[in-house]
């Protein structure tokens, strides 16, 4: 075993100085890191399509002040989809849109009912459609949803994974049907949850049973795992 020469007292003193010296930078880093992970997941989904032969381009909104187009992600559940950037991917005669924080109706939502049942998704892949008339609380019909991804900047525990399964149940319940051999989505990604931290033991237990049950969903922890899983094999 290598020699253990860790000087706890000296390290603590230096750490204290490190925090004093970098307090503002650490705070700045912490204030944007959640959104950075969302942007990473959005970009990674785009890259999944691009690396599989889809032709992708970005559609940007026009800035009201400069009157020029500008790349702008929607880091909030509020806001008209039209005011934010999205990607359009084409392959042969197929076309999909990749959107950030898009509101999508649940599978059980019915029109003309008293309550709206919809969810804002971190990344949604939908069939190509025109959302220019959509307001903040308008939801894309569930039938337009192809797949989706959720990004959480935290370590995953059992309840978080169970919550994600609940989301899949609301949006695409057929993904949770028990099948003898799991038919992978193939042409599109399966709905997925990305956590930037660790998959804690309790979460690993739920993940194990997800695989055993053949659900068509994926769970990724860490940027490296997501990037290598999305890379074309």
């Amino acid at each position: 075993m290598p020699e253990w020469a860790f000087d706890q007292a000296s390290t603590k003193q230096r750490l204290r100085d490190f925090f004093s010296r970098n307090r503002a930078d650490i705070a700045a880093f912490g204030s944007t890191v959640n959104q950075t992970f969302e942007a990473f997941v959005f970009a990674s989904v785009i890259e999944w399509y691009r690396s599989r032969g889809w032709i992708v381009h970005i559609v940007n909104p026009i800035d009201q002040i400069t009157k020029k187009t500008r790349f702008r992600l929607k880091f909030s559940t509020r806001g008209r989809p039209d005011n934010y950037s999205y990607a359009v991917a084409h392959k042969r005669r197929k076309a999909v849109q990749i959107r950030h924080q898009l509101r999508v109706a649940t599978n059980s939502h019915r029109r003309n009912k008293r309550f709206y049942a919809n969810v804002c998704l971190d990344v949604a892949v939908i069939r190509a459609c025109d959302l220019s008339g959509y307001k903040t609380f308008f939801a894309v019909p569930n039938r337009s949803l192809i797949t989706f991804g959720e990004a959480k900047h935290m370590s995953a525990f059992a309840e978080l994974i169970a919550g994600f399964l609940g989301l899949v149940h609301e949006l695409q319940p057929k993904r949770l049907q028990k099948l003898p051999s799991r038919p992978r989505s193939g042409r599109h990604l399966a709905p997925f949850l990305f956590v930037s931290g660790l998959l804690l033991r309790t979460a690993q237990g739920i993940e194990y049973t997800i695989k055993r049950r053949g659900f068509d969903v994926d769970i990724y922890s860490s940027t490296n795992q997501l990037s290598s899983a999305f890379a074309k094999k």
Partner: protein
Amino acid sequence: MPENRDVLAAAPLFVQRRYSAIRGYVRAVIETEFPRVEGRLSGADQELVQIAALIYTLYNFFEDGHRAARDAVSILRRLDVAELRIGSQVFTDRSEATWRGRRLAEELLNQIDDKTMRDLITSSASLGQLVRACLVHLDYA
């Protein structure tokens, strides 16, 4: 020797809160995996494991955040998106916002003189593995 909470006095609040969670996690690993060690672990050694766990968690937090920013910028650049804005911060190939996490991770690691500990921080696959390795090095396991 300063106590761990004094070390964190100048850290932003979210780091202090994270440290509370880390302490709980370290305790849980020791309780469940090393029940015989629990009563024997000295206060100083317990603080050592906790401070190592804090450094490990922060190091990976900075590194992961940097990688996420760098990869997002890189993918978007291929689609002619020159910059990504989050609030007032601008992320490009070389901007300070993109590289801040890497710089903080490196500077944090440089606060440790001992190579064995540095290697443990950078090579442990999980926080649990780091805690186990620390206990082995301290002759508890």
